[in-house]
């Protein structure tokens, strides 16, 4: 979390809902919201598309749409769930345009930048993530979506429940079952580094 997270925020203690209200008239407030959530949205899209360029494109589209529609955010739920709602619609249109959920070619799928890691370690991690993204496409959609929302999107169980229309307990169950699925389908990927 390099550049942006190191910037000194003008709004260190202002919550998202209040920032979203200010963002209707204050571009800086929207920029702060962007900095807080760009990683979540990017990782959410990357988990779904498996392609950096597509994820960046969808992240742009999501924030542009959020800026256009910021007045429609009423503050009745967490801002991140509203943003994920936009991201979800952008993703749906993306896959419709491409012909539903295509299999992403393995060699083209992941060019995940992992600066700071030695080359062999970075390559190993790419391979592991590749397996996980592949497995996510082959488990129940509910479980995959819950995992993506919580692990990639950074949502807590309550927020993921709001997005999925399920209770917190149901999301915990989905996460637990989804992790079981990943353990069985990506055992190598996940157990290599057990210590």
């Amino acid at each position, binding site marked *: 979390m*390099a*550049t*942006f997270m190191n910037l000194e925020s003008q709004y260190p203690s202002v919550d998202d809902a209040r920032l979203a209200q200010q963002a*209707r008239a*204050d*571009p800086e407030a*929207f*920029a702060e919201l*962007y900095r807080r959530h*760009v*990683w979540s949205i*990017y*990782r959410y899209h*990357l988990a779904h598309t498996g392609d*950096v360029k597509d994820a*960046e494109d969808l992240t*742009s*589209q999501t924030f*542009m749409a959020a*800026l256009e529609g910021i007045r429609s955010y009423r503050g009745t739920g967490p801002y991140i769930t509203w943003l994920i709602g936009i991201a979800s619609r*952008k993703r749906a*249109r*993306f896959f*419709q*345009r*491409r*012909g*539903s*959920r*295509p299999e992403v070619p393995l060699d083209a799928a992941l060019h*995940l930048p*992992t600066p700071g890691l030695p080359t062999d370690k*970075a390559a190993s*991690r790419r391979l592991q993530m590749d397996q*996980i993204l592949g497995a996510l496409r*082959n*488990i*129940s959609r509910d479980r995959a979506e819950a*995992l993506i929302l*919580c*692990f*990639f999107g*950074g949502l*807590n*169980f309550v927020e993921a429940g709001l997005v*999925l*229309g*399920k209770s917190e307990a149901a999301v*915990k*169950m989905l*996460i*637990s*079952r989804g*992790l*079981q699925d*990943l*353990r069985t389908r990506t055992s190598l990927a*996940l157990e290599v*580094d*057990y210590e």
Partner: protein
Amino acid sequence: MNKDVLDQIPADEQPVAYKLDSLVEDMQLSPTFQWELETQLMDAAKRKTRPGQGWHTKIIPAVGWAILALCAVFLLNWSIRSLAPNWTRAAGGTSEPQISFEDNVRQANICTGPLALAHGFAVFLTNQDKTGFVMLDEQKTIGELRSFAWSTDGRQLAIVGNTTGRGTIYLTDSAGNTLQPVLSDSELGYLMDMTWSHDGKQFLMWSIENNSIIYLLNVDGTGLVEKQLDVQMFATPQFGPDNESIIFYGADSSSAGLFEVMLDSSQARMISARVEDESGYALSPDGSRLAYVEMDRELGEARIVSEEMATGGKDVIAILPILKGSGSSLPESANLSWSSDGKTLVFDFGRGATDRAVYLAYVDSTGLIKVADSGHAPAISADGRCLAYISNKQVFLMDLSSTPSNSAPTPVLLTDLPAGRAIADFRLDKLQWRPGTLP
């Protein structure tokens, strides 16, 4: 992921969770991309909040347009009122007054049999006088009731339910009195869609666990057969003519589209690469024709096509304009279905839930009518008299017996959409009248 959240995960799964979290943390976002996007957003935000673009300067043209629209509506209303009596007489006075249509429906003189509804992960049937919907399995013991399909004779309703990722198929009688599991606690995984064979003896279904496999099952729950396909299935399989093939939206190694796969040989053929939507196709009641919506992005046309299954001969029934090119704002077609006499098609067409219109197309290419500006999940009753659709959280009916060739009759409110079990995408909403002529 927050450590407090990770710690709420069951201890057995925590090593996997921590490992996954660590891998996700390594997914770095390019600083260049971040800066560029932030710059773009700031520019856009500044343009948006520029004083000249304040609310008062925006609202003036809007108020102007609103006044203009009101005048237009007033003029149109006046014109229709002055012309309507003459039009009714000219048509032979066959259309019934609106109240008679509604009474006829509620007294089960027309559009008999229940209307089934899938909404919010629950399945409902209309009550006897069609004043409301009754949820099947009110004890909520079954899990997410995902979808349903009537048998061709209308005597049974099959329902697909899923509990924690495992699918079950239930059967109930046409009144929804008993729910009997046919395929219990399935090892097949999360079941998506199912359909009946034309002879009512078999189910065809598929699971999200592996979308290159379809399953055939006898209606009594025996004889489960698994068939491997060379084509991936994305949605809505249907039996082809004589139950010898299946038709579905899917993809082979090169492209997505509408496919037909022979059940005996698994031989696949692409019917159309221009079909882009998951429920934008349907086989006619007699199995002789397949209707589908093709998106031609070069010409900017969505074509409603009827293809003869035996010869492959195509007729374009109607055309709707779409944007040219590969933009993301293309509308989708959904819930295409035939009337039981095979003369008309209905479907919804649009983008979101609110900007999606319901269309009725005459198969002989004599007309395409937008019957509702905002609606989805249309369905025609077995007697062809009623068109039901969902709009703004309500279910409406339209009298098709008086539908002129270029305009739609006034809809009648059937009832409010009931609350489901959880919020589901509106695309999962489905209406289907009981087929056949049962009392």
